[in-house]
């Protein structure tokens, strides 16, 4: 089973109108090389699920600036003024979700759960249109799972089976998104042979990963 593909082959799997998840937090842990190629190929009308819309010239922020996003599901968009502009002009739909809720929605999507109950957002506009469930006298919001057609994630060291070791603060949503999409593509800073990673260090098991792209050192 050969999971290694080129960046072009990876981006060719992403079609207009698809829902994609992209790991990362303000660009840290974004798969930067795949994103750059996605900008170059100008895939359109994407629904993007990502923690944030990063900065205009860094990571997923470039997809927003290039008008490739039809709908954005994120917890924070304040660092990319273009997101706010497109949102206010009605050019892009933006759904803002509390960060902890977004993480759990993605986890639920990957874990086969029907949703999660969270106290976050009770008594705020976030509860509008959502089912409220009281458990032992405490009110929770039912938040539904999120899934995607393709997840684009990044890893520091990845073996040829797709086992992933992360570095620093880059894991954020990457570990969760690896479980929640039909096709999972990891951009590796370094690709190693199967057996080179200590199984004790592996954070994302390779069974979650469909394809591996060589991103080189970021």
């Amino acid at each position, binding site marked *: 089973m050969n999971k290694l593909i080129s960046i072009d082959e990876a981006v060719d799997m992403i079609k207009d109108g698809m829902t994609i998840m992209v790991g990362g*937090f*303000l*660009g*840290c*842990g974004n798969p930067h090389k795949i994103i750059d190629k996605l900008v170059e190929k100008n895939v359109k009308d994407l629904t993007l699920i990502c*923690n*944030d819309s*990063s*900065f205009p010239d860094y990571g997923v922020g470039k997809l927003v600036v290039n008008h490739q996003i039809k709908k954005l599901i*994120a*917890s*924070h*968009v*304040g*660092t990319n003024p273009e997101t*706010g502009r497109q*949102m206010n002009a009605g050019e892009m739909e*933006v759904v*803002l979700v*509390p*960060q*902890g*809720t*977004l*993480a*759990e929605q993605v*986890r639920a999507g990957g874990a086969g759960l029907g949703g999660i109950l*969270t*106290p*976050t*957002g*009770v*008594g*705020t*506009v*976030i509860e509008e249109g959502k089912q409220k469930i009281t458990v032992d006298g405490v009110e929770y919001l039912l938040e539904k799972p999120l899934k995607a057609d393709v997840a684009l994630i990044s890893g*520091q060291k990845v073996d040829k089976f797709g086992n992933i070791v*992360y*570095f*620093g*603060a*880059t*894991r*954020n*949503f*990457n*570990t*969760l998104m690896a479980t929640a999409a039909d096709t999972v593509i990891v951009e590796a800073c370094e690709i190693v042979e199967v057996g080179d990673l200590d199984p004790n260090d592996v*954070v994302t098991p390779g069974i979650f990963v469909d394809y591996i792209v060589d991103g080189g050192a*970021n």
Partner: protein
Amino acid sequence: MDKNEIKAFIAKRVAKELKDGDVVNLGIGLPTMVANYIPEGMNIFLQSENGFIGLGPAPEPGKEDMRIVNAGGQPVTIIPGGAFFDSATSFTIIRGGHVDMTVLGALQVDEKGNLANWMIPGKMVPGMGGAMDLVTGAKKVIIAMEHTAKGAPKILKECTLPLTAAHQVDMIITEMGVMEVTDKGIVLKEINPEFTIEDVQNSTEAELIIAEDLKKMEI
């Protein structure tokens, strides 16, 4: 005091609330400054919601690693004993009651402990990031901010902006004083001697309850 002195004054007073061994999450802006005033010898574990605990100071110039950044995307360091984790674990810490104290700014806060700090409809919609989870899950929520917005009260009878969370604020610290949110309303516990009680009340829309043992605000 000029604006920077006011912010430093507030941050210093917030730092006095820290207890040895606390897990603390500091919001962006003024709250971040609290890290500069952690009392010597006190072990505080700063949590960074993007995925680690043990947030250290900014790296020396030239030693920045963009894989180790804070929740504002700026390069930082991690202290010995720190740990990295993913966003689900990060918010397990935050929402699950494992954060002893969070310090955040506010656009508005009211006498019922409601907080609004994530959007101004039609003007500014940056998103809530981790703020809603933090305010909901942290054991103690401190609002650290300038008392008014260019003279307009921010401590209100009732917030008019969309809420970040309902009934979660425990304490408000400003350049004028230290206030506690109670079932009966907002109690002024400490006052900066540069101001009178009347000054503080005139800058506050909510009716203040003056603590019987009102103390001088010291840093």
